């Protein structure tokens, strides 16, 4: 598909041309970036140093009302309160886009989740390739790259102080370009070369990696190893890793309200909380924090690849950056491999 050119001073015009749909883009508050639905594209700030903002909420919100009911003098009523407006998400990293592809494979799997799928269909993803990967990034180890295209409809690359190259990757992306009119121009060969060079330069800046050779068999073979206890000792069971991970998708279903009115909603949940696996009897098969870390690693690197064909990790490094006690996924996998090889 095409590659186009957008001068940086026209970025606002481009965003403003995305009309009749919601725009979700990065804004900065108190020095922290978050992706929000915005009315005015002037507020957009591509703060590419802060990568921890959550994007999965565009298709998998933290609270999602599945249905609501009320009953009273006029009888009872059930309201399907899903709102699925078309949303364009601008400025995400390729790893976050790949995370959507990974989530798609689950939510389209044995059971097609209508809530996620409706939202996903209504979401257009515009990415911004990384030029400065962080010291936590390791996407190449899991099959990604700073200029990866999986899951994206358009990909912006910073090719100079004054311009972006914009690669059109899908029909949905093309529709956005078409409605932008002449804000974008065709990219010339030099632009395309700069685009490739930027991708290669970013790739060379990634310094962390993890050996995933045969990981989906290696991890289960270490199931009974004591290494998990040592790894689990410092974990505080807080849930930061699961909530911020772009591929984590566990949820709880809660009912709120009373006989007069109420709703059923889906909320994020995390396997790192002890309550996640407590049975009605009070028994907990994953009581130790090491057991819960083991389960999470197995899920991401063993069960998911075997069942759905993807390693459920995009190498974004959020869990590594945000963990309060430095539980480092790379270190965990390396320790387990060492323990097995001994």
């Amino acid at each position, binding site marked *: 598909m095409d590659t186009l050119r957008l001068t940086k001073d026209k970025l606002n015009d481009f965003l403003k041309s995305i009309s009749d749909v919601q725009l979700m883009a990065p804004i900065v508050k108190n020095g922290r970036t978050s992706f929000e639905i915005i009315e005015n594209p002037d507020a957009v700030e591509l703060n590419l140093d802060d990568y921890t903002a959550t994007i999965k909420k565009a298709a998998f919100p933290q609270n999602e*009302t599945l249905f*609501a*009911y*009320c009953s*009273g003098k*006029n009888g009872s*009523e059930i*309201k399907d*309160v899903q709102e699925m407006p078309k949303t364009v998400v601008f400025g995400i990293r390729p790893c976050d886009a790949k995370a959507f592809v990974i989530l798609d494979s689950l939510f389209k799997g044995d059971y097609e989740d209508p809530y996620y799928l409706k939202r996903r269909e209504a979401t257009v993803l515009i990415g911004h390739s990384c030029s400065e990967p962080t010291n936590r990034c390791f996407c190449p180890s899991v099959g990604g790259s700073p200029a990866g295209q999986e899951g994206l409809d358009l990909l912006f690359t910073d090719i100079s102080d004054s311009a972006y190259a914009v690669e059109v990757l899908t029909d949905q992306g093309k529709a956005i370009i078409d409605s932008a009119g002449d804000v974008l121009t065709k990219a010339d060969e030099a632009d395309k070369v700069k685009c490739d060079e930027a991708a290669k330069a970013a790739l060379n800046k990634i310094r962390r990696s993890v050996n995933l050779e045969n990981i989906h068999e290696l991890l289960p073979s270490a199931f009974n190893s004591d290494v998990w206890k040592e790894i689990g000792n410092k974990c505080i069971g807080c849930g930061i890793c699961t909530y911020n991970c772009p591929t984590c998708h566990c949820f709880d279903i809660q009912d709120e*309200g009373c006989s*007069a*009115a*109420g*709703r059923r909603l889906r909320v994020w949940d995390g396997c790192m909380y002890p309550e996640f696996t407590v049975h009605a009897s009070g028994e907990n098969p994953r009581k130790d924090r090491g057991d819960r870390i083991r389960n999470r690693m197995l899920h991401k690197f063993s069960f998911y690849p075997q069942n759905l064909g993807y390693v459920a990790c995009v190498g974004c490094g959020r869990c590594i950056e945000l963990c309060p006690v430095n539980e480092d996924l790379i270190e965990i996998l390396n320790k387990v491999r060492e323990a097995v090889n001994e």
Partner: protein
Amino acid sequence: MSFEPKIVAFLCNWCTYAGADLAGTSRYEYPPNVRTVRVMCSSRINPMFIVNALLEGADGVLVSGCHPGECHYVSGNYLARRRLVLFRRFLEHLGIHPDRFRMSWVSASEGAKWAEVVKEVTEGVRALGPNEIKREQEWMQQSS
């Protein structure tokens, strides 16, 4: 039509509840905005009750118990006082006006005082307007 505040009042069984009862039998008039919840002692009040009441849509909360030194359970109101005086200051820090959470000591013989307390608290909350920090429950509204 002026705003009619909804005020939830937690009354201790032995003193204030009896005092409120006396106000009734003595036919003292006071605003009807208070909804009472009887508890055995003011120290039963968990600060969560107060915030939850506000979040569920109450415009004001009143906690009332025995005078210090007269608690039916000897020291319950002393313990409640420590917590709740601090809590009121804390709520103000978070943007909940102190007039939305009041406390009073009303004994079983103070029917007149009860009426005055309710008047004062109601007017204080009325002046502040409806409480904005509450759960949005648009699904509670019937559409027809």
